């Protein structure tokens, strides 16, 4: 039986975040998710909290609500993110800064908010959901790739700052995963993507969740500041 923890998955209402939330819930943890709309499908046993990660007060209120209902957050899975794709030449300042604000600064806001109680408890796990795009870049996604690369520097810094407090911080970089975000691509785009994945298929959300669950476990206490691609071999080069 697992040591029951309080888990927060931001952006846990769909896609990879949802798969992560469900996996933690199935393992017996107390799980909360945040979403911008506050609504989420199939949330049996999962606390759904409304939060906008671009708003510090909203993050504070959401985490306070989780603390009152479930207890202090012990495992943070920072997953909330948006895309606003476009070629650099046609990308506005807002397209760039809005994505940075949600994906990178949002991760920072939530991590800062939960680090206090983790520090007090001398135990914590932070896992940031980045992307292989953050490792290799992507035409049409300069903003998204920059935000996802930024999470790596954020996570490594947190890992160093909090190492003495029993708190680890790691990054998981999903490759092409079967989600709504990816299914929005054309068949051709998907085929091109698959041609460079050695394993030769799309990944499942639960395969990301499995890696996250491990990094959040007691067994992973000696793993911190790492970047783990879960991508069917895509990023090995």
């Amino acid at each position, binding site marked *: 039986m697992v040591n029951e923890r309080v888990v927060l998955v931001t952006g846990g209402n769909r896609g990879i975040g949802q798969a992560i939330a469900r996996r933690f819930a199935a393992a017996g943890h107390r799980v909360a998710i945040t979403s911008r709309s506050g609504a989420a499908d199939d949330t049996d046993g999962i606390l759904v909290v409304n939060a906008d990660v671009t708003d510090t007060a909203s993050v504070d209120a959401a985490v306070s609500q989780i603390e009152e209902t479930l207890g202090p957050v012990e495992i943070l899975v920072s997953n909330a993110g948006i895309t606003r794709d476009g070629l650099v030449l046609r990308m506005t300042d807002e397209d760039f800064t809005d994505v940075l604000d949600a994906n990178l600064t949002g991760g920072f806001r939530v991590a800062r908010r939960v680090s*206090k109680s983790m*520090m*007090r408890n001398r135990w914590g796990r932070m896992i940031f959901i980045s992307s292989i795009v953050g490792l290799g870049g992507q035409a049409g996604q300069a903003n998204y790739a920059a935000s996802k690369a930024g999470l790596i520097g954020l996570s490594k810094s947190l890992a160093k*700052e*909090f190492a*003495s*407090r029993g708190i680890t911080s790691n990054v998981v970089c999903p490759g092409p995963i079967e989600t709504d975000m990816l299914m929005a691509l054309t068949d051709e785009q998907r085929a091109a993507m698959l041609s460079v994945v050695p394993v030769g298929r799309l990944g499942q959300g639960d395969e990301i969740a499995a890696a996250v669950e491990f990094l959040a476990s007691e067994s992973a206490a000696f793993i911190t500041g790492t970047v783990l691609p879960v991508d069917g071999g895509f990023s090995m080069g």
Partner: protein
Amino acid sequence: MSDNFERFKKCAVDVLSVDEAQVVPEATFESLDADSLDLVELVMALEEEFDVNVEEEELDGVNTIQAAYDLVVSKL
């Protein structure tokens, strides 16, 4: 000892995991084995206890119990 110092001392004992007897005005944080993160933690606890707000830059040069205590009390 003033009541305020007793409250301060309790925070320091809790956060830094030291004995009450070690929390004397002339003690340095170094001598208490407190690193920069401990100091931030202590300040957060003091902010809560005394309902004050301490800015990051005000912590520069705050190396002793006395200096930290004076900083907090100056805000009451």
